[in-house]
């Protein structure tokens, strides 16, 4: 695999991980709150509905 392609895949993975964590630890909307097991969750506690 070319160095450029490897670099692109790695950059994408790092950016994706950063975006995921930012989204998870930046509670913003009403109704969002800390979730068991770390991070936050939004919406009601509907696990089946």
């Amino acid at each position, binding site marked *: *695999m070319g*160095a450029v392609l*490897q*670099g692109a*895949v*790695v950059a994408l*993975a*790092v950016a*994706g*991980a*950063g975006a*995921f*964590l930012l989204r*998870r*630890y930046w*509670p913003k909307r009403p109704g969002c*709150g*800390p*979730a*068991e*097991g*770390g*991070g*936050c969750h939004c919406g*009601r*506690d*509907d*696990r*089946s*509905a």
Partner: protein
Amino acid sequence: MDALAPRTRPLRLALLGNPNCGKTALFNALTGARQKVANYAGVTVERKTGAVALPSGARALLVDLPGTYSLRARSPDEEVTRDVVLGARADEPAPDALIAVADATNLRMALRLLLELKATGRPLVLALNMVDIAERQGLRIDRAALSRELGMPVVDTVAVRRRGLDALLEAAEQAALAAPAPAGWRPASAEALRSLHAEAARIHRLAVRPPERPDTWTGRIDAVLLHPVAGTLILLVILFLMFQAVFAWAQPLMDAIDAGFGALGGLVKATLPDGLLRSLIADGIIAGVGSVLVFLPQIVILFLFIILLEDFGYMARAAFLMDRMLGVAGLHGRAFIPLLSSFACAIPGIMSARVIDSRHDRLTTILVAPLMTCSARIPVYTLIIAAFIPDRQVWGVIGLQGLVMFGLYAAGIAFALIAATVIRRVFWRSAAQPFLMELPSYKLPSLRNVAQNVLLRAQIFLRRAGTIILAMMILIWFLSSFPGAPEGATDPAIDYSIAGRIGHAIEPVLAPIGFNWQIGVALIPGMAAREVSVGALGTVYAVAAEGDEVAAALSPTLASHWSMATALAFLAWFVFAPQCASTLAVVKRETNSWLWPGVMFAYMITLAYLAALITYRVALALGGG
């Protein structure tokens, strides 16, 4: 409501009843959800909703409400129940019908609430739950008399065996469609309460015949398990055996998972060409996430024990035994439930502190709950114990590693009690509230419930490994790899990376407690979740490994890089450190103030630093350098 008019929205049904009568088990059976069910009161502290298909084919929304003995709410969770029933919540339409759940073995407790609910005018159905146990105890319940006296349909159910569900839903739908206008409800006067008690007692005498041969087993077992000396000893032995099993049984599985990740890392290094991608996958993802996933067997075994004990009905007895100890520390007896939940995770523990009605008692409980050893600490503890504590027996039969684990749990409990005493003395001096608790009957654990709950814990752990920990490991790998070493550099490349520089920058603060810069790098992302620290150590040491060498398992790596004093100080740090941003956020939400998360962070980080400092210095003095 006109039964023939087309419905524009699904029916709303609310499940409610006394604590520990099986509401959540019934909710799970009806909706297929997997809410936590335990054989002690106070598991549900906020209302949960789920969709359910009615026998008519229509769909309904089912609301599971926190348990209460009366609509005269005293604690925040009971207020939720009262407000939903009365339609007093702006964000929640009033239910079309109430499904009152009653424990058939303890109907006396349910009757007063049933009479109060009847006074609200809401359509009502009574689910007579756990009728199988009532029958086994020889209780005879006259359903027709009960239905006639209460003026509501009565349906037999056994939630854990999914019996009576269709009949219950059918009755609830009929009740909802034939709804009269609600009559409203006002708190009863003392006189009205007395007549309510008298009416409940009258109906109980009429409808319930006691067994001809009363059950003496519960009494006999309780005579031993609740004995101040024998009961406490049995509790300690059970906890002790639990931690021995965590180490003894999990080891073969852990070795297998470890070997699996080692082989996977080797395969990636052998097949991918040398480069960034290979380093990311092998050093970042496999070494980092793998070093956390190894602990799955221990988490499953620990929760298997806890859930079996809950289901059997033992945990409420443990609460009874602990009440005296909690009382000495100034904690309310009801604090046992939040503190027990905190062994899984401090977040549900802090939320369940809503069962405590006094604000001071509730705040004290919230502030000390994170000192209970949550499951995220297990990977940290077991990693260090496996690396530094010899796997040998003391006094012939007791495993030393299990003993140290037991000691760490005991330290968490002991310091929570000490912290509670100090908090009550520093912040407020109100008298402790009296505590009344209903002891559930002993039950054979339901295999379905046990399996479901253990699976839920495993899922939470795996989901974390696949999301937060994976993302963190990718970032830590990036920070440990860039920028690379300059031309002609002599130090290891990681020293020049962003993570290396951050680690070296904070090293002076951590050096007095024996922490090296790699630990400093691991502690910062560990704020997301404690076990991320383990993964971060795995990644940092893997990136630092030379060339094509496959990173060894983390445990032997630490054993060769750390002194015994550093390892013990690291354990002491994790007993106290507020290494969990989500816990601080939930304290902010539950107290509606930044003051209390601030107080919590300040006292816990101070304790962590002092504990690590003392441990490190004492260990050095004893030759652990």
